[in-house]
């Protein structure tokens, strides 16, 4: 089975993150990396491949700026076979609808049986792209898989819900998203790092995909970011000390003032 893994290049969450003047995320002036949640998607694809007959091919796909090739490289170092990078200035500022359009058109051009995504990006974090992809590709979706297993031609996916755990059987084609519970993502070995250098990476533009520039980008996006503000610094919490039995009243008063009770 050939697998496409969608991986997103995101600003490093441990560094300072900024917005541009047009309220889009600054993706150029900051260090970025492969979204950590997408490492799980790569890991699951690799595990499926390792348990397979060895003929499977894993293609990692990213839509993002020039530097997003870093995310592809990391996935190749982990063990994926080849990469596709869709990069085009016109894509900048795309929302999830536009992003999913570009991803879907790219996926159609890649020989594949099914698609694996992360559960959410660590920057946008909307968790909607996998569903949009399934819709655009006209295939079923299984989201939030926490355990993946191949049984013959069928893939069995465990979904842990609040009330129940479901096990879903699916046959390709489909779009799958996996959670961070699906199994620790591997570190690239030194050999993996060196081997990645020789793995093929194709770079596609919107024209290569036959997507019109007007359909993507900031102006075509359905969502508009009006304003952004930095998270206010954490203020020191209020400590209620109980010396004379008035603590409970003070605590209740505090909770009431914050409309918790």
């Amino acid at each position, binding site marked *: 089975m050939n697998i496409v893994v969608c991986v997103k290049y995101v600003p490093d969450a441990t560094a300072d993150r900024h917005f541009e003047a047009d309220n889009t995320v600054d993706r*150029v002036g900051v260090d970025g990396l492969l979204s950590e949640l997408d490492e799980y998607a790569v890991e699951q694809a690799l595990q499926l491949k390792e348990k397979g007959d060895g003929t499977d091919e894993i293609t990692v796909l990213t839509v993002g700026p*020039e*530097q997003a*090739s*870093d995310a592809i*490289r*990391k996935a190749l*170092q982990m063990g994926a076979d080849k990469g596709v990078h869709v990069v085009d200035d016109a894509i900048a500022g795309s929302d999830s609808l536009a992003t999913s359009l570009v991803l879907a058109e790219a996926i159609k051009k890649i020989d594949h049986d099914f698609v694996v995504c992360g559960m959410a990006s660590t920057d946008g974090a909307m968790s909607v792209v996998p569903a949009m992809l399934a819709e655009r590709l006209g295939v079923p979706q299984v989201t939030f898989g926490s355990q993946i297993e191949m049984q013959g031609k069928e893939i069995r996916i465990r979904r842990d819900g609040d009330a129940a755990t479901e096990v879903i059987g699916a046959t390709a084609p489909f779009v799958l998203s996996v959670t961070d519970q699906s199994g620790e993502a591997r*570190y*690239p*070995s*030194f*050999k993996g*790092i*060196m081997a*990645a*250098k020789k793995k093929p990476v194709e770079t596609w533009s919107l024209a290569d995909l036959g997507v019109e520039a007007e359909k993507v980008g900031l102006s075509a996006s359905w969502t508009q970011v009006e304003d952004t503000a930095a998270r206010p610094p954490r203020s020191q919490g209020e400590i209620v000390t109980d010396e004379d039995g008035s603590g409970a009243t003070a605590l209740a008063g505090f909770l009431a003032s914050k409309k918790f009770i």
Partner: protein
Amino acid sequence: MSAETDTTVPFTEADERRSLRREVAKLASGYGREYFVRQARNGEKTTDLWLDMGKHGYLGVALPEEYGGGGGGIGDLAAVCEELAAQGCPLLMMVVSPAICGTVISRFGTEEQKARWLPSIADGTLTMAFAITEPDAGSNSHDITTTARRDGDGWVLRGRKIYISGVDEAGAVLVVARTEDARTGRLKPALFVVPTDAEGLEYQPIDMEIVSPERQFTLFVDDVRLPADALVGDENAGIAQLFAGLNPERIMAAAFATGIGRFALDKATEYVKGREVFGAPIGAHQGVAHPLAQSKIEIELARLMTQKAAALYDAGDDTGAGEAANMAKYAAGEAACAAADRAVQVHGGNGITTEYGMAGLLVAARATRIAPVSREMILNFVGSHSLGLPKSY
């Protein structure tokens, strides 16, 4: 890594090297300083970190691929060593096992010796200690007296070694001894692999003030009988082989020291940003900022020289690498000591507390000025070799 900085200009490392650094740093940060100190204080080892590094091929990066290594260079191994130290986990045995012993065996060992030792050095399931220092010879390694005498097919080894790191964790020790030249009767150095469980080999820990899970030992080699294949390389080319292991040793020691320096500087920087007295973070005072900025510069310069030495060594230029490796080792030791000292100072009273753990770095950094070759011996080398000055000894 942005595309703009991706051009292959000299003075920057290749993408793969930078990826390696990033992955090692991430893996090591999962263990972190707390783990390292806890293991040291409880008398435990860092075996799980070591094996984790081995499993990912990070210990064996510089060893040949056909023997389980990664086929990279000493520059890659130095990057691994530095990143570990920069995360607060300086692993001294990296300098010894894969760098000195691994290099000597892979360059001069027989097929059998390589097949026997290298794969397990590469994956970390065996570590090999290295013993050259002797109580009476010290820095003057020409004066070592541990001798190897022919005994039928094999050898009998006798002598004493001191400050040998990690013998308790090692499966074998690469011992520098001397053999008698059959023609001239003069003694010349030769290298022997001695299993740590060999009969007649005993070792005792030396109490050291370094906070480290890796310890130093006195080694008593009391007529240890060895088979013929314990001798690594040519009995008559021992000196050249010994020197082949010394460049990697110095490059690794430099990387180890710059890593410690980076760790100290990171801690200091973080602290001075947060600590406020006189109404401003103390890092705003130039009296605090400048020494740290100085350390940043000194560490970067030492790193650059370390990378140059590694690049020369990996390109096969042993002579060029020799001078650069010595200079890198010198600069790195000085930079590490200064950084540790300044890091303690900017912490004020906290610099001496166990909680902040900064004072312990002083000794660790200090050791990099002494071992594996002291700063004075490097200055001697640069004086006589680079400047052509006469020698006093």
